[in-house]
């Protein structure tokens, strides 16, 4: 779950983001506390807090004093939009680069994707 | 609560060590002596009977001096107690125990005299040489003797804690040289006769005074040694 490739707080932030996108954490739903995250992932509570604070700064979560942390309305849509942007550079760019190296044309690529997603 | 008192309470967590075992040793020694005296009288033995059985718990205090340091000092470090506090608590506890036992000896001595040596004319607590003195000297005599033995063990153990084996070896070599030196001095000057006649002039009060001074010196020495000892 947690690996060594990048700081843990970033990984925690991403894990929560994924849950928001997939709907596991719905809009206006309460998210577990920093300490619950820390205990669950067996990480330092300060690190968990750092990850969550990042999402608060990004406006994806908001705090209700004395109650806890909640998913902001519209957070899933915003995240999806962000991820779509990243999708282009993260997946499409290397895909087309590799395809052109192998002499696969755009049409052929589209056809391959179609058969791929059908199966 | 004061941490010095807490140290005493820690040493008392196992009640046997400071209170139970000395009483058991004393009790056993007393009963054993009684049994022997009874056998002697039954077989027609007469005259005064003496027993050194009362000193039995005192030798245990030598071991207790070693034990209360070697076993408990490293643990007291883990309990975040300063060496000074550990020292004060331990020595104070022993002093209180020794004083209580000394008073007990004195009272038992009175009882012994009153019952004509437990009805058998024996001397266990009230040895003539001691019992002839006033109550204060009697109690102090026992007290100083107990503290002295405890301190010998305590000092030796402290030296071990501070300087480990090297310290122990040096300590015992010094002690050995000192004792041998005195014996050699007496022997070479042919003064054993004078020595014994001098020894016979010792009084309980004198022994108490000099013993007390030596015990105090050892207490000071072990304190200074302990201040930089490591667990």
């Amino acid at each position, binding site marked *: 779950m*947690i*690996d*060594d*490739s*990048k*700081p*843990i*707080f970033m990984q925690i932030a991403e894990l929560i983001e994924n849950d928001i996108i997939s709907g596991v954490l719905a809009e206006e739903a309460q998210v577990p506390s*920093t*300490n619950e995250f*820390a*205990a669950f*992932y*067996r*990480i*330092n*509570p*300060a*690190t968990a807090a*750092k990850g969550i604070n990042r999402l608060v700064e990004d406006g994806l979560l908001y705090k209700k004093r004395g109650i806890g942390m909640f998913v902001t309305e519209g957070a899933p849509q915003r995240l999806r939009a962000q991820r779509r942007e990243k999708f282009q*550079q993260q997946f499409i760019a*290397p895909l087309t680069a590799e395809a052109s190296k192998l002499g696969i044309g755009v049409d052929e690529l589209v056809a391959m994707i179609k058969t791929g997603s059908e199966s | 609560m004061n*941490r010095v008192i*807490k140290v005493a*309470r*820690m040493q008392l*967590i*196992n009640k*046997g*060590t400071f209170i139970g075992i000395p009483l058991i040793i004393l009790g056993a020694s007393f009963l054993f002596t009684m049994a022997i005296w009874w056998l002697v009288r039954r077989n027609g033995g007469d005259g005064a009977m003496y027993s050194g059985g009362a000193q039995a718990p005192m030798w245990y205090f030598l071991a207790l001096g070693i*034990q209360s340091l070697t*076993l*408990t000092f*490293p*643990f007291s*470090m*883990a*309990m*975040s*107690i*300063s*060496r*000074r*506090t550990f020292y004060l608590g331990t020595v104070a506890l022993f002093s209180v125990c020794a004083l209580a036992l000394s008073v007990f000896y004195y009272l038992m001595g009175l009882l012994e005299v009153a019952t004509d040596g437990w009805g058998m004319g024996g001397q266990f607590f009230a040895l003539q040489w001691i019992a002839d003195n006033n109550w204060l000297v009697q109690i102090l005599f026992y007290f100083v003797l107990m503290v002295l033995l405890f301190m010998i063990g305590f000092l030796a153990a402290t030296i071990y804690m501070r300087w480990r084996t090297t310290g122990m070896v040096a300590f015992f070599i010094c002690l050995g040289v000192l004792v041998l030196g005195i014996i050699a001095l007496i022997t070479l000057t042919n003064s054993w006769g004078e020595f014994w006649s001098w020894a016979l002039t010792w009084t309980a009060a004198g022994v108490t005074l000099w013993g007390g001074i030596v015990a105090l010196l050892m207490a000071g020495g072990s304190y200074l040694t302990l*201040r*930089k000892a*490591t*667990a």
Partner: protein
Amino acid sequence: MPRTTAIATRELSKTYKDVKALDNVTLDLEPDRIYGLLGRNGAGKTTLMSILTGQNYADHGTAEIFGHAPFEHDPTLSRICFIRESQKYPDDFKVHQAFESAALFFENWDEDLAQELVEAFALPINRRIKKLSRGQLSAVGVIIGMASRADITFFDEPYLGLDAVARQIFYDRLVEDFAEYPRTIVLSSHLIDEVANLLEHVIVIDKGQIVIDSDAEELRGTAVTVTGDAAKVQEFIGAAQVLHRDALGALASVTIKAKLDADQREQAKLMGLDLSPVSLQQLVVRSALSGTTAQRTEERTEARK
């Protein structure tokens, strides 16, 4: 109000006969954090902790706990808990008597927590400590350390002899309890992978010297291992600092100290090189050994020629 530093040392040195146990150690530890004190056996971890807790003293330099030298200072000592890995207990003590004693001296002692942990570790409290197994002995130390809730708690290789389940209990309870009662915790360990995620800050000591003193998160991702054709690996890493180098024929696997950006990762992929993350444990081992290892590798290369 500025926060007082929990632990501060300045140029701390300690020599045992001819071994330099601590060599010019200068550190500042902030309160309410979990620190990892990492290093090989004999690197100086226990000596450092002993001096910080007044159980030992330095030849040179100063150590302060909340602004005061701990040596023989009861008010400072009473805020510290340090159970040694080789802790001695009175010979006749039973397990519960050690806890009774700890309850006397540690003002924040939590008896309920101690009881919970006794059950979690299945510790026989009426057994003599002398008769415990190595793991049970470690559990006694862990329980005293946890239940003392001291402002600064040192755990000295607390897992020795504990099985995987018991170790996990320890780590879980530590995170839980720390979250509820924040305090300064120094976890000394040479099993780094197990504790890596719990640490906020990492101090690595080797041969008595501090070789890493850094935020754990900053360390993560600061090194990467590049594997592939030796020539290409060399071309890729350029002048980056090499922490470790392994060679197998034409194949090379080199750990470098570098934070790679997306472009560099892309480039590595195009060159047919594999990139793998470096765990904290590897990083520590490599950092501690980088001098000697680099030398040995060179010698090996020389010998092959």
